């Protein structure tokens, strides 16, 4: 369907403009049903880059691929749009963090199984951006899903020496059970 070179170039551009993450040459190849040579893609990306020369965005190459970036001179104004973007993590993000913390290492699939709903990719992205969660490898099952775990910074930020210092769920149940008797005891000791 998309046959001419200009159509290929358009598709590369639109993929770059709509992607949340940098795109690799492998990613670009996935866009097409027919095989497009890597060299062709590289050449067309160069053309896209020069098409955008002197415009509002730069096509840049990062370690993991290509992406469009707003020219730096716009950044300050763009930050005014969302001054304090996140003041509070959503319940979803907190649950994902808790699962990674208590159940690590986990895959995205594990998280979905535990929560029982499909996972919005933003949740993990926010936690990775915060440097509380990182990918520590791939699970050797079909699809080789990434394994997520908490980071050193996570421990630092919460003042833990180790993940075992996270509150224990069993402890919580016990506390609940002995909650009331304690009151009585305090009274009696104070009398004594």
């Amino acid at each position, binding site marked *: 369907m998309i046959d001419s070179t200009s159509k290929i170039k358009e598709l590369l551009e639109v993929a770059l403009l709509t992607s949340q993450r940098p795109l690799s040459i492998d990613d670009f190849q996935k866009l097409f049903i027919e095989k497009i040579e890597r060299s062709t893609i590289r050449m067309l990306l160069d053309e896209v880059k020069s098409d955008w020369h002197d415009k509002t965005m730069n096509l840049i190459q990062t370690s993991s691929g290509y992406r469009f970036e707003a020219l730096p001179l716009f950044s300050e104004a763009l930050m005014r749009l969302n001054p304090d973007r996140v003041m509070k993590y959503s319940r979803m993000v*907190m649950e994902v963090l808790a699962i990674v913390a208590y159940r690590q290492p986990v895959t995205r699939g594990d998280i979905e199984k535990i929560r029982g709903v499909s996972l919005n990719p933003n949740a993990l992205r926010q936690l990775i951006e915060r440097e509380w969660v990182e990918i520590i490898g791939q699970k050797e099952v079909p699809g080789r899903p990434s394994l997520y775990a908490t980071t050193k910074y996570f421990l630092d930020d919460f003042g833990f020496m180790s993940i075992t210092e996270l509150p224990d769920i069993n402890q919580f149940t016990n506390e609940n059970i002995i909650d009331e008797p304690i009151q009585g005891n305090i009274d009696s000791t104070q009398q004594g």
Partner: protein
Amino acid sequence: MSDQLDTNQLLPKVYGERIGSLPQDLYIPPDALEIYLDSFEGPLDLLLYLIRKNNIDILDIPMANITSQYMTYVEKMKAIKLELAADYLLMSAMLIEIKSRMLLPVPESEEGEELDPRAELVRKLVEYELMKSAAEELEKIPQLGKDRMVANAYFEKVTEITYPDVSVDDIFNAWKNIIKRAKQFDNHKISRSELSVREHMTIILKSLAEKELVEFSSFFDTERDPIPKLVVCFLAILELTKERLIRINQQEPCSPIYLQRENS
């Protein structure tokens, strides 16, 4: 005479024909009942299917036929020992109630209006089918993220991002919520020791990400580590092997044992 009639009515019948197996017009064979159950959104959906399948006017449901078919279906579900949803049984009760009321003389309301015992069911069926078609219509509309994509290019954030504050309690509460919701026995058994196994799994995987091959013994500082820690570390290695995340290698007897990631 009347006794015999009653017995016959209790047997599953479809349009006068007694059936010992699933009705022919049910399009999924009995051995696929599990899939079959999944393909219905509930008792109203099943009832609608039966009504539609037989091209019956929803406003003039032949109660006896539909009830029999429905009951056959529910009986089959029980036979296959599927966990029979209470909603399906409730619907059975409602159908039987309507059926029995239809056998009695039709009562008249205060205003002299005839009360059709099927009215409430019809109202429900109409409303449900309406919503069902509404869902199908919504599904056809191009959705963002499924059929449409928006611009989402990157820009360098210049000022410091203010991150939300999170306390340990927040994480713990989130975890409690998950467990409360999951209600599965497995998830209730999150103990401290299990957590430390999980932590060691992460530590081992991280060190194997840095170096391809790590000697088994290097994970155990037998001089300094307390015994519980050594045991936990060993359990973590076993767990990682079980989950096929790492491989344990030894070239020949008595030579050093190495750990490596499953993919390397």
